[in-house]
């Protein structure tokens, strides 16, 4: 803070800074929490869909075929993707991570991304992130309880981002509105509250000027100055008198 700023301005700046910090903290922390909640909820819904696909594939395995030979698996993936706009891609991989079926046929027989399979644990679903894409993995277990592979469902945040943008805008709007009201009210409030103290400082300053009129707020200071001035003036007068009397003494 610059040394030239009055204390009232400094208080206003501090209050404004705390209002901005408080507003940003409240909005920012709420936004981050909401973002997590929304992503969690989206993942939850997609986990249900992936789980249902996994069950369908497992039912196919009951026919006694290997995972690569499950009838209608490719069509199932494509139908599911078409039915759910949130889904960016679906694939079925074998236990060594090789893609057996994929909505993007270019990926067939390629290895699934490492990140997609890194999180698999036990017989439950897992979630992963591969670059900008998020994903859900569901294990495919055969009738003997052995892991045959997995269904991988990838999705992006576009639909969540639209909601987040809308929330962010409403929060920015609310924060700006709150600040637009609070900042001027704070500045005016500080100005009014500090009136008395500012007057005291001003009175002190004025009281110290030569020939200042009486200042009730600085009466004590002016009293001290007046008393010292009177003593000095009297002494000055006496010394001048002595000086003016000298020639007569010399003459005598």
């Amino acid at each position, binding site marked *: 803070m610059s040394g030239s700023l009055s204390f009232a301005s400094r208080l206003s700046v501090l209050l404004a800074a705390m209002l901005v910090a408080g507003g940003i903290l409240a909005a920012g922390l*709420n936004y981050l929490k909401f973002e997590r909640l929304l992503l969690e*909820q989206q993942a939850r819904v997609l986990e249900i869909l992936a789980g249902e696909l996994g069950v369908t594939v497992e039912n196919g395995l009951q026919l006694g075929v290997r995972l690569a030979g499950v009838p209608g698996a490719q069509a199932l993936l494509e139908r599911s993707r078409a039915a759910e706009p949130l889904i960016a891609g679906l694939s079925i991989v074998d236990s060594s991570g090789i893609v057996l079926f994929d909505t993007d046929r270019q990926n067939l027989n390629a290895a699934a991304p490492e990140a997609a399979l890194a999180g698999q644990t036990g017989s439950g679903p897992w979630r992963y992130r591969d670059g900008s894409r998020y994903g859900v993995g569901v294990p495919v277990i055969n009738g003997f309880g052995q892991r045959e592979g997995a269904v991988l469902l990838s999705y992006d945040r576009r639909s969540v981002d639209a909601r987040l943008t809308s929330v962010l805008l*409403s929060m920015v709007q609310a924060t700006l509105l709150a600040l637009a009201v609070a900042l001027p009210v704070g500045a005016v*409030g500080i100005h009014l509250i500090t009136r008395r103290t500012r007057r005291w*400082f001003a009175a002190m300053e004025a009281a110290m000027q030569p020939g200042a009129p009486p200042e009730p707020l600085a009466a*004590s200071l002016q009293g001290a100055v007046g008393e*010292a001035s009177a003593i000095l003036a009297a002494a000055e007068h006496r010394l001048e008198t002595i000086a003016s009397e000298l020639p007569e003494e010399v003459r005598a």
Partner: protein
Amino acid sequence: MTPDRRLIGSVLALSVLLLTAAIGFVSHTALRSFEGELRPELEREATVVGSIGVQTLQRALDLGVPFDGLSGVEEYLATLLSAQPGLAYVLLTDAHGRVIARAGETPATFQGLPPGAVPPGRGAVTRLLGSSYDAALPLLATGQPVGWVHVGIARARLDTPLDDMRWDVVIVLLVVLLATAEFLRFLLARTVSTPIAMVRRLQERLAAGDWTVRAPTDMGAEAGHVARHLNVLVRRMNDRWDRLCWLATESSAAHRTAAVLAEVGGKLRFGMASVAERRGSDTASARLPLFLFVFAEQLSTSFNPIYAQALAGGGGTFGAALPIAAFVAAVALATPWGGEVVARRGPRSAMMWGTVPAALGHLGAALAPDVFSFAAARAVCGAGYAIVTIACQVHLAQEAPQGRVARSLGGFTAAVMTGAVCGTAIGAVLADRMGFRLTYGASMLVVAGIALLVWREFAPGGGSTAPRPGLWRSARIAFAEPRFAALAVLAAIPAKVLLGGFIFFLAPLELRELGFSQAAIGRNVMLYGLCMLPAIVAGAWLSDRTGRGGLIIAIAGALNGVGLMLPLWLASDIALPGAIVATGIAQGLASAPMLAVVPAIAGATGNAAAMLAFLRLAERFGSVVGPPAAAALLASGGAGHTMLMLGIFSLVTAIGYGLVLLLRAARREEPA
């Protein structure tokens, strides 16, 4: 009333009002908008689950099974419900809305869709039914709905996170308000109250005829203007005096003029002081760096063991305990050295030196690849913590006005407690949103800010170039003073043994044993801090008022002991919170007097900084010993037995401390 006192209250009131209104408004809008955006997502989940159920039932209908002939529906719905946690109910109604089969808890107000309800082209019919979001999907036969599958998600799924967010908003508000109060206190002390007090002091000196005064010119704002005008005024008066002297020297009537000058000199003193008047005691602004430092340190309190466990690969308690042990050990070991640094370099330099390891430690913790490097980083943090806290304590002691030492030093504990409450609360929220590593990064930034603040705002000096005794010699000198030895052994160590052993270790475990929820355990343990804050103020006031800090310490120790014996007379679920309250009050009462008696004990030896450091070391020792001691007692005889033993320990040491004081007083009276 001076202008500054009313001003502080009014500015605080205005800040509270505006911050509450602004944060409240932003949060209210945010929560309303969240509800609006989250609700469709919950309904979507219900729709997806419903569509799974509908597919199976629709397949049966498509195969020619009549709606009335569907069998095993209850079991199927129960399977569907159990497969998807978080659902309130799944049920099947006929086309008239009558419930055919159900699973889960249906709201009492549930009503099926009316006959003739039109099925949606895609998705489900969604509505809010009592405390549930309901999604209904049609079962069709020849294109007409013959039944509806309803899936309900309890509103609590939405309300619970929204309630969490409301609590977080309250915490943000509390932290911002407390931080604002600390910043305002600092700013008002710098620009208003301290300068006004200084001007009044100078005014009194001028009124007494002392025209040698000089106001400091490094103050900003109006105070700076007043100081400069005051210096001009004094200069003007001195010029008039110089003129008198000149007039006198010009005169050859030396005797008469000398008499005039002597008469003036008898009433007024002139000449310019070589050193400007000190600004005066400024304990309010001395609190700010301490508050911020403890705030930064405590940001990680709520997740330190969790982070450590994660870095250890989910290992057991060793991984979680190692960084905490490293931090406490480093604080204990660095405390005497910190005292030396403060004594040699002065509080300002020591604070700035201390922020270096603290900031590096936080950075190290943020980047730690494994639990051992994390523990090392926490140890570095601990060294910084030891130096900065001792420096702040000595700085507060130096700034404390005469007769208000205890109250000023009470400000030390109050700043620590406020920083701890704020840091712990907001740290948990930050970690929840940004992750552990970024929260450590935030701690580092706050510490860097403290270094900047201290560098800009605090006057250098306060150190001593005089040769100082070494660490061991300082310890010998300190503990050779019986009053200090008694204070450390019979008051400081027992207090921290109880804090570590009872509040941090036994109370949470025993509250859990009594069936309290985690939130309730947290609230009960928080009673300690809540009771301590007003008790600190009361203890400081009493100590300053009566001048019997030692007696207050002894009484507080006895009160703590009696409080811990409450299970002898009361049921555990009342005795335990009662003991926490008693410990908070007792330790709050003793905290300021304990610090305030040290300068008195040190007296003219100038060993106060070292004594304060050894007092802190004694407290650390108590903190380290407390939990294992309580654990051993708990293993040997249960919680009631442990509390009783700790209570007896506190009572005996308090009586011992009281006896030492009595003995000392009797010896002082003997020569008289």
